[in-house]
């Protein structure tokens, strides 16, 4: 469920980053207190694990990808704070190295996958573990917890997507970022995550946890005593506050009525009348008094550069590429 670049408006990205920043700060503080020095590299190992799990991803309809995250497993093994840092780092690696998930939407991705996911999953795990006794009970709790965690994160992602057409569009009512409203985004995100990705995450979590328990490498999490109510309350407040923050930013208060929503859902084909012509791609060619020449100049540069690139790639095909491993 990596949100790519430019699917969320910059304002949304800013709000989500602001929401996740205090979580990071608190996590780092707690980790330094709770985790002994020689266990710290395990955070890196956790990040690597999460990174590898996220490599196995499939595109989903609705604008994102589906894959396991392993956040709940990490939370169970190292505590939710450590899981938060690990998954954040894995996401940073993916954003900067593989272009998977945007740089601007990094905050939003972290909010969903590094905060909501491990904390929600861990809370469910802890709650269920008390009810279901024994090893089997603990594994069940881990599976259900991770399923819930992943779907909670997917739900947040869906909401963030679905709000985009409402809060940012141009004068003509055309969405500037993700064009799908809540009614499309939520089912498009939730159905595959509930049926596929969540199940994979649950199975992986249970299997890996069982394996680690068997080899007695799963040390009891260090953060048990501190989690609980405070974290849950923080989670609730942040989740409640995020859409408010988006709306309060002012552009959309007026349009937040049934009529507009209905209009958005109905997909009135307003853009049709523009017809199909190349120049429409840059309709405001001459905005702010730039002479048309500048536009042509830039296009010429683009064309020339593209030609060079294609040529270079063609030479690459000819020279053999089998030399390296």
């Amino acid at each position, binding site marked *: 469920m990596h949100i790519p*670049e430019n699917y969320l408006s910059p304002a949304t990205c800013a709000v989500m980053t602001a929401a996740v920043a205090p979580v990071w700060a608190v996590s*780092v503080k707690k980790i330094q207190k709770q985790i002994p020095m020689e266990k710290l590299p395990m955070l890196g190992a956790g990040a690597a694990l999460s*990174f590898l799990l996220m490599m196995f991803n499939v595109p989903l*309809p609705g604008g994102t990808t589906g894959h396991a995250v392993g956040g709940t497993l990490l939370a169970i093994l190292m505590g939710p704070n450590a899981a938060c840092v690990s998954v954040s780092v894995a996401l940073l690696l993916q954003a*900067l190295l593989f*272009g998977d998930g945007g740089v601007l939407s990094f905050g939003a991705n972290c909010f969903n996958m590094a905060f909501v996911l491990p904390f929600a999953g861990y809370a469910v795990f802890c709650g269920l573990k008390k009810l279901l006794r024994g090893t089997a009970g603990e594994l069940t709790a881990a599976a259900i917890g991770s399923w819930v965690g992943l779907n909670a994160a997917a739900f947040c992602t869906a909401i963030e997507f679905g709000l985009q057409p409402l809060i940012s569009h141009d004068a003509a009512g055309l969405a500037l970022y993700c064009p799908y409203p809540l009614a499309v985004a939520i089912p498009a995100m939730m159905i595959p995550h509930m049926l596929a990705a969540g199940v994979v995450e649950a199975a992986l979590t249970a299997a890996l946890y069982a*394996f680690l328990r068997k080899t007695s490498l799963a040390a009891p999490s260090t953060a048990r005593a501190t989690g609980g109510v405070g974290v849950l309350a923080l989670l609730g407040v942040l989740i409640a506050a995020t859409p408010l923050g988006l709306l309060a930013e002012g552009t959309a208060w007026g349009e937040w009525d049934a009529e507009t929503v209905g209009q958005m859902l109905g997909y009135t*084909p307003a853009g049709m009348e523009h017809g199909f012509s190349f120049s429409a791609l*840059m309709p405001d060619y001459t905005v702010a008094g730039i002479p048309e020449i500048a536009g042509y100049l830039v296009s010429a540069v683009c064309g020339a550069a593209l030609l060079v*690139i294609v040529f270079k790639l063609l030479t690459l095909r000819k020279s053999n590429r089998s030399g390296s491993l």
Partner: protein
Amino acid sequence: MEAPLPSWLAQDEAYRPRGDRDAYLGKNLLSLLQLLSRAQVQRGREGRFSPSADAKLLLTLTAVVLTALARSGMFLWLMGALALVRLCLLPARQLWHTLRPVLGAAVFTAAVLLPAAIFGRWLSCARMLARVLISMAWVSLFSHTTNWNFITGSLRRLHVPDLFIFTLDMALHYIVLLGRSAAQLLEALTLRSIGKNTEKYTAVSGVLGGVYVRAQTLSRETVEAMLCRGWSGDYMPACGSGRYRGAVYAAIAGLVALFIYLEGFV
């Protein structure tokens, strides 16, 4: 003291392998190992005149933010043109590596936007696609022209907490480690898989356990090596060089000025 060789070892081996298909599980395990072994973190190559990484990171962030904010087509075209020009200065192989994720993202976005485009929102979809392409190109350029050693240093300059940087460094280390031990195991396995394996499942579980135990051992040894060399929990990552920072800051200022001008804020 020379004991004679065992008789079988003194003879030539008369061995003819029979045809054999791998069990489903074995095949899947092999492909999993292959995937793991390819999980090597790419390391960007710095050009000779490459500016310092923190400045480049700031430039990239600025470009991405402005691209996301821009409403004028002209500015988007400009950003695209800049990215294209930088791209065509790269050597062919690096160019291909840089372009690959961009093209992937473009195809993915196009597929996602198709329904909306069919419903008549093609203009906004085209614009979104352009934005995605352009910012992806900038980010990809950054990561492929920056040595990863310097990225952690630049994060330190941007006041990211040491714990994050440490976790990042360790994650990179473990990804490489896991990939390499998977690759080595795969090599050892291919060299020694010289016939029909009668106990496929025990072999498979043994190999999986082997990967796990090796990762475990290696990570323990890493911690020991760090302890021995004076690491005591607080981490001191390297700082990158401060080359050409002024020039990059000027470029950032230029971009922002252009943005303000083209977006009609003045």
